[in-house]
């Protein structure tokens, strides 16, 4: 019970100030929210297209319903199992490696004392992120091609070994693709981890040092537990996209080479190749719908598991 009038006024004022503050924040978030609504929510209305046979003369809304007909093609291929396996395994590998490598590089960056060197390394590892995947594909081609490739003509030849036709040997490609993915994304991933590492309270390290903890102990006992939440958040969000694949990486980098499909065909590339000729809007919507539903279920499941193990780190 508060009877002091002066206090109640100051409370009101602080509430007012708070309100004004929130309005400013809301305004700042507005472009992002509008973007989210236009780009992510409004298109959801189009999901019904997945259940229609589109007839342009009738228009999208008046076209006939066909039930799950449009989904059939995803499972009709004799390679359906291979495609699902590739999509899932590559994404699992990416999730684990992104997390491990991102944290590792973040920690290394944090240990560099020379400011100039730190800036240099940070920029250098971020650069691949900015290179177009088409260029990456041709850099790879420059290394691996048969006629003019660097590896075949300058390394294997010099070693006296026979040339390898990399673009028709699927066995090599899981390694190439994972390597290229990590090389390309590590800069961006490590920056997120790096920024949360430097926001750790310095006094914790100081007291640990006084208690006699060495550098390694400081990392395992202080840094890692403190960046666990962000690692979990990023992993959770990646799980939601486990049925999507980086189209450029899987389509462009192997130069769309048929013999490599066993290890490079994913849902996105399959859909793209299959519908390139057919151009069926209903079928491509069906593929997107399927990917989203599986992603949604996975994120619910993983989040449920996280909530069981460490509730404070769950997304919701």
């Amino acid at each position, binding site marked *: 019970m508060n009877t002091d009038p002066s206090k109640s006024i100051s409370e009101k004022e602080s509430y007012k100030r708070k309100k004004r503050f929130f309005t400013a924040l809301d305004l700042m978030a507005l472009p992002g929210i509008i973007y989210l609504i236009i780009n992510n929510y409004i298109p959801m209305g189009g999901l019904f297209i997945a259940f229609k046979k589109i007839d*342009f003369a009738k228009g999208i809304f008046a076209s006939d319903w066909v039930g799950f007909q449009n989904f059939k093609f995803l499972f009709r291929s004799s390679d359906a199992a291979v495609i699902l396996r590739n999509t899932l395994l590559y994404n699992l590998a990416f999730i684990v490696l992104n997390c491990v490598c991102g944290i590792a590089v973040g920690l290394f960056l944090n240990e560099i004392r020379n400011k100039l060197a730190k800036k240099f390394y940070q920029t250098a590892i971020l650069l691949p992120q900015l290179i177009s995947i088409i260029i990456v594909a041709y850099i790879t081609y420059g290394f691996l091609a*048969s*006629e003019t490739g660097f590896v075949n003509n300058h390394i294997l030849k010099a070693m006296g070994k026979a040339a390898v036709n990399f673009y028709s040997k699927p066995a090599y490609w899981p390694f190439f693709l994972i390597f290229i993915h990590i090389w390309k994304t590590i800069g961006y991933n490590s920056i997120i981890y790096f920024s949360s590492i430097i926001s750790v309270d310095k006094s914790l390290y100081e007291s640990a040092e006084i208690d006699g903890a060495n550098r390694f102990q400081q990392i395992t006992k202080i840094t890692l537990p403190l960046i666990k939440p962000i690692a979990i*958040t990023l992993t959770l969000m990646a799980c939601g996209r486990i049925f999507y694949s980086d189209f450029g990486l899987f389509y462009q980098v192997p130069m769309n*080479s048929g013999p490599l*499909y066993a290890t490079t*065909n994913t849902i996105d590339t399959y859909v793209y*190749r299959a519908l390139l000729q057919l151009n069926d809007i209903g079928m491509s919507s069906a593929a997107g719908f399927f990917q989203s539903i599986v992603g949604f279920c996975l994120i619910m499941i993983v989040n449920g598991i996280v909530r069981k193990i460490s509730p404070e780190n769950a997304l919701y």
Partner: protein
Amino acid sequence: MKKRILSAVLAGIMTLSLAACAAPGAAAPAAAPAGSDAAEAPAASGELVHVKQLMSNFGNNTDDAAEVNAAINEIANQYGLDVEIEFVSSDAYAQQLNLMIAGGEDLDVFMVTPGASSFATLSANNSLADIAPYLDTAAPDLKALIRQEYWDACTLDGRTLLVTTWDDKVTGNWLVMDKTILDELGLEEQARAIASYDDITAIYEKVYAAHPELSMVAAGGSSNALTPSEIFFGDTFAENTLYDTLGDQAYQMGAIYEGTEEVINVFETPEWKKNCERMQAWYDAGYVYKDSVTTTDSGETLLKNGAIFSFFTNAEMNCETAKTSQCGKPVVAVKVGEVPVSGGRIRQFGYGVSSTSKHPDAAVKWLQLLYTNADVANLLAYGIEGKHYVTNEDGSLSYPEGVTMDNCGYQYHVAFVVGNYYLLKIWEGDSLTLREDAKAVNETAEVSKYANFSWDNSAVTAEVTATTNVYNKYYKNITVGACDVDAEIEKFNEELHASGLDEIMAAKQEQLNAFLGK
């Protein structure tokens, strides 16, 4: 903490997606001038009917399209038409076209081109309007211009859906060889006389002995470079086996021997297997360009850069002149096979009227103007005289003083898609009698027995996508010979059957039987 992380991640995502948005946003204004310029014209006279046409630019520079559009309109206005022509980059064309039709935008006429904007795709989703009712009344000259056989091939169930381009439908398969090397080895005479697979091998043997650094042949790179196994040699070219794909762009969905009535799987025929084995023999001998499966360079580019000695291609009658200019060096082109005028070929390029068009009669009237008025056709192909081209003394065209291929503001030198190929003037370097020669061939060419058959794959789309995947996986590698061909062909067929080839072939056979009236 959690909130902060989330907001950081969201902000990051937003920055990335904004960056991704920048590209298409920047490209949009380029299309605007054409629209705004054309919109000004009809304000003067109210009775003009607006017709909008969408075209692929086929990689040509059409920066001055607004100006050309205005010049075309000066003529079109006399016929009560106000035409607006919009060019779209060829890679974005199909996408843009489908969006415009789906979105119900103002669109009357559009170009039909292979790929996702093909006749099969557009007729399957009912984008094409039936123009038969308007041809007699609004465009009798257009109707009379094009051969009846071609109109028949563009008519499904009594509905005429396409105005095919009036150009050379007759093509042949050619072997294009580097003339400099032939001259150096004194082989030109022998090369011009080739009549069988073994004759080609004999040439390759000699050239390869003199130039082991060269690949003898590249295959499969661009859409235009054929692999020899697509040409179906018999032992000699004269004994060629011919297939008709029955309206499909590739063979994977069952084809037919020319002149028979039973749908077969080409990949199980002995001719095809033999051909692939021959390719493997070439590959093992070191004749085939090793990156044939992955390269995106065309045969022309590779030959120009001295990487290969020869390539196979599908082309019209003046192949040697055309390829000499494309390769930038003299070539010898020898015809190795005839291609019958199939339904797929007739429906490959043309103009369709949108099923969403509000005045299809005016659209057809405009097409008649485009196909019969030489001024309109030449404006669309070459731009404005004096600015984009000049006429030489012999009647051929070339770039004006100071203008080159690189800085010419308008050049749509894709003669075969402009509409009426025979109305176009001749560009410098081509034979001056080219059009007359071609016309004579075109008017009498024999049309395939199945040209009027266009098959509807809507009942088996899942199988079509599945077999397409299998086809992409094996076809190039086998036809280039870069593997153990016999074993791969077996696997290829096994997977085709597992992916529903039999269902597709049965559906096709059923429709073919109905077509043949059985």
